[in-house]
């Protein structure tokens, strides 16, 4: 119970800190996806051949920006919490965990706005949409695993955060968010299949955009990827955590 209070307090701190010095606060979070959406509409919409293109792109963007924000914030979460780590006996995984929870809160608010606005862009409101919650849960577990990995290795090699910020745009364009999967040359399809984020975006899009519900195959792929990433992240984190204080 005490741990729940602590995680809550840390998550709240992250949300406060994130928008502390910005003028329009929370709404800043909508601006970035909106900008990307406009770029996609200008460049790709007319020859994408995708019906209901705006809903298609937005459903991908919402999930992508959750992922991008949460990893971008968490990578420095251990290094940035050095003061607390050195003063209090609290488990160090609370820091990437609370970053993830803070960002989940943000995602829920974003989804709320998304559900309202997409009314004008042909969203089909039905019970299937509720499946987005287990989908987000799996995606969050995946992101948490990656966060555990990134934040702990970043303590020892600070260039991890720089490398990660460099890889992110490449990953973004390797994920079919603004273009149709079918537009990729089958020769290079392999690279897309290696991209773990692709599976989560696809699952989310099946729920939010496609008329038919996602297959069991899709769910099990995501479940395997999420738990695999979590196990790797947890393993690396537990190997390194005892040396955090000396290395920061």
């Amino acid at each position: 119970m005490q741990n729940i209070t602590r995680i809550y307090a840390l998550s709240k701190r992250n949300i406060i800190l994130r928008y502390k010095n910005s003028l329009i606060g929370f709404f800043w979070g909508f601006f970035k996806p909106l900008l990307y959406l406009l770029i996609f509409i200008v460049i790709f919409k007319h020859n994408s051949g995708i019906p209901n293109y705006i809903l298609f792109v937005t459903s991908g963007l919402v999930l992508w920006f959750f992922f991008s924000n949460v990893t971008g914030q968490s990578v420095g979460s251990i290094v940035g919490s050095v003061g607390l780590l050195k003063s209090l006996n609290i488990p160090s995984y609370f820091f990437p965990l609370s970053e993830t929870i803070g960002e989940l809160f943000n995602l829920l608010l974003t989804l709320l706005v998304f559900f309202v606005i997409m009314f004008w862009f042909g969203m089909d409101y039905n019970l299937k949409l509720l499946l987005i919650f287990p989908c987000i849960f799996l995606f969050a577990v995946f992101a948490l695993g990656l966060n555990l990995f990134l934040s702990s290795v970043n303590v020892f090699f600070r260039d991890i955060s720089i490398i990660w910020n460099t890889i992110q745009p490449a990953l973004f364009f390797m994920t079919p968010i603004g273009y149709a999967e079918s537009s990729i040359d089958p020769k290079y399809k392999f690279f897309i299949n290696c991209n773990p984020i692709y599976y989560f975006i696809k699952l989310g899009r099946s729920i939010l955009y496609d008329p038919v519900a996602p297959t069991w195959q899709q769910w099990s792929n995501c479940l395997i990827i999420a738990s695999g990433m979590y196990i790797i992240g947890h393993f690396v984190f537990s190997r390194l955590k005892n040396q955090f204080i000396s290395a920061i």
Partner: protein
Amino acid sequence: MNSDIIIKLENVHVSFWQNNVGVYSLKDLITQRKSPFKTKTIINDISFEVKRGESLGIVGRNGSGKSTLLRTIAGIIKPKSGTVTVNGTFAPILAIGAGLEQELTGYENITLLLSLYGIQRKNTNAVANIREFSELSDEVLRMPVKQYSSGMVARLAFSISLANDSDILIIDEVLAVGDQGFQVKCVDKIKQIKNQGKTILFVSHFPDGVRDICDNAILLEQGEITHRGLAKDICEQYKMLF
């Protein structure tokens, strides 16, 4: 274990990974082909006991392992070998304001640390006590901590660590930056806490402070206890180091 003994360390070793010179990034790791870390022993085979109600001073040069020893006792650092047994609760170690979030205001820091420490946020009494003891005005507490002077940070940090009604109070060099009035107030408060029968671990570079507050003391040199005994004797030993 005897219930009179609140802290017991047995053959505790703590070692850190230290960056090998020049390996700070992945690029260095690849180009230099060196192992990135070497192990450095910080605490070397330390055993001691602290009785309930005792106040123990820890003195030593910079880098002799005092803060590491405190953090090991508080469970923040895990020892490589040996056992640390503690029969009580700790207040947070707020060494000169570490642990305060620079961007948050004084009030936000208070609620954050209190809830991290398991005090209910609704406990407005605790907040009032902190404000009263720190003598910081309402206006100051609404400012982000990054705008505080070092003395104000020390006041806030020390007041927060006192707010917790814990069995063991760990004081790591907090008295160094406050002004005269606050220092006197802190020493009085520490003595008052001591008289309540609480255990105090006190790290300081000022032998007079240690002699004033502590019954016993230990002198650390390069991670080992070289002298232990009554606070006033150890303070003499400490002065002879320089």
